[in-house]
């Protein structure tokens, strides 16, 4: 088995997919990071223009905000949860004040998690598709399938080796994405921000903030958590891609089908409230990091546990179908 896996890994390395993926990442991350830096500079300029004297005193603004929030917290008519929300914000602002950092200053760690949130449902799946779409269909179009099948190796082992190699490569790609997003944005912004406090477990409901399940983490931990979710989602996408690659003998067709599914699935989001079945589609559950940021529209029955379960089931089901079909397939045709 190990030899088989090695073989498959070699195939991927030889196919120059990694340079392509890394190239795409560098381009996108570079663009995003530049965009953020540019927007930040424009905002600072605009504020300086308004305050007139050319010096942008964010400290005064932040201190005023803290004062206002303390006053709200002392009002006897605020709900407990409202007060807790203010307490959280005060804590965060204080952190930035103490270190003399403007809270809107972009930092590498924050960028990399935002990048993950944004890319999770389209960009990252695209990268995984590049990796895995031709794993089986490529053997057919490259006419290497007969060579592969005439070895004295059971079919399931071959498939297993492919799946394992896809797993390993997916893991590496996710890690590389995390690293690249950190490094490139770090170079752009000159700031890492790893020890910034991040409050997660918040949820924004009905205009208010629920802080009941709040956990405070360092931004570094938050990066790890975010990319762990990205990793899980990419594995599931990989499994589905793999299944399609087994079912369809042509790689372009495989890619087309999966991309259409991903993009078309995004439109199905609009029907989440009325059409119950949409919930069970894997595409509508890709956005796992929204449960960490708390920034999500509450849909009845949709929760992190539910989304994870749906994705996991889709993953296993895809692999099961892949094995079934591949084992039965008539290669000689």
């Amino acid at each position, binding site marked *: 088995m190990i030899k088989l896996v090695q073989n498959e890994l070699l195939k991927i390395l030889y196919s120059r997919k990694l340079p392509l993926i890394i190239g795409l990442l560098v381009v996108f991350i570079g663009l995003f990071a530049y965009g953020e830096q540019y927007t930040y500079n424009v905002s600072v300029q605009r504020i300086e223009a308004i305050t007139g004297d050319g010096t942008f005193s964010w400290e005064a603004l932040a201190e005023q905000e803290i004062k206002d929030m303390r006053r709200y917290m002392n009002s006897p008519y605020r709900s407990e949860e409202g007060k807790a929300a203010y307490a959280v914000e005060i804590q965060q602002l204080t952190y930035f004040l103490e270190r003399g950092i403007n809270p809107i200053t972009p930092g590498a760690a924050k960028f990399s998690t935002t990048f993950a949130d944004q890319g999770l449902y389209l960009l990252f799946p695209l990268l995984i598709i590049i990796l895995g779409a031709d794993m089986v269909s490529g053997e057919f179009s490259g006419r290497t399938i007969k060579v592969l099948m005439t070895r004295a190796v059971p079919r399931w082992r071959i498939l297993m080796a492919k799946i394992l190699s896809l797993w*390993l490569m997916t893991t590496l790609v996710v890690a590389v994405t995390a690293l690249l997003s950190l490094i490139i944005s770090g170079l752009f912004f000159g700031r890492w921000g790893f020890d910034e406090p991040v409050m997660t477990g918040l949820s924004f409901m009905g205009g208010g903030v629920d802080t009941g399940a709040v956990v405070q983490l360092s931004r570094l931990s938050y990066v790890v958590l975010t990319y762990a979710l990205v990793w899980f989602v990419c594995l599931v996408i990989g499994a589905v891609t793999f299944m399609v690659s087994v079912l369809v003998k042509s790689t372009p067709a495989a890619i087309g089908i999966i991309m259409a599914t991903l993009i078309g699935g995004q439109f199905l989001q609009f029907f989440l409230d009325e059409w119950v079945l949409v919930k069970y589609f894997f595409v509508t559950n890709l956005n796992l990091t929204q449960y960490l940021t708390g920034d999500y529209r509450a849909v009845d029955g949709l*929760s*992190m546990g539910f989304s994870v379960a749906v994705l996991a089931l889709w993953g296993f089901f895809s692999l099961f179908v892949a094995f079934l079909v591949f084992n039965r397939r008539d290669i000689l045709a």
Partner: protein
Amino acid sequence: MERRLLILILSVTALGLSLVFGVGFFQALQIGSNTSKREQMVREAGSAVATDERSGTVIVTLGDSIGAGVGDEAGLGIDERYLSLLDQAERSALSSENFAVSGAETSDMRTTLQSGAVDLALKDAAFILISIGGNNLNRINETSAALEMAAYDEALKAHRENLAASLTYIRERNPLAHILVLGLYNPYGNRRDDQALRLLHRWNYETRETVTAFEGTNMVPLYDIYEGHLDRLLSIDRFHPSGEGYQVIAEGIDGILGR
């Protein structure tokens, strides 16, 4: 050979990373599930609170003659008519305490409140009904337009101050019970000039500003309901509401409080 080594390094790195990601994934899953569970809980609690709103048992009425029910042929008044709109079960759970006094101005209501006479009722209030301001306005009767404007401005200012103080007092004793403030209607119909109407609207508007600064409050906009129907909604004295007029107010309150 080097290819083999590269593969080995990559594989080992990938396995190690999988471990890290795996642990991270479960931690993230835990945090995310707590968030969704909390959100679910809060949503359910929210709907429970909404239905349980009126956990008090006393309908407290404050203010002037309209609060007292002057003009009602059946002698019922707003609170009694409101109770009659409820079903048997809800009605038996509520009672009514009326502190309204004919001729009272906002300052009088404030004095009544601050004397502590209403404290006990406020504590057990299901909701609080306030009808005030009409007498303040009525008392303005100057000879010249300029004097009238000055008197109006002063009266409005005093009214807002006293109203805010009253609402604060009520809130200190009962932070949750709903407070309903009746807007002023125009009892003079077409007989009033535009300027007077404008002043009436401004009075209502500024009262609304004061009222909505407090949480859990509502205005009951009577001007629109009464406009054009004065013949049947006003009593014989052409000033206070008739029985039907009070019924319409009670129904308005029922609509606002919901069921």
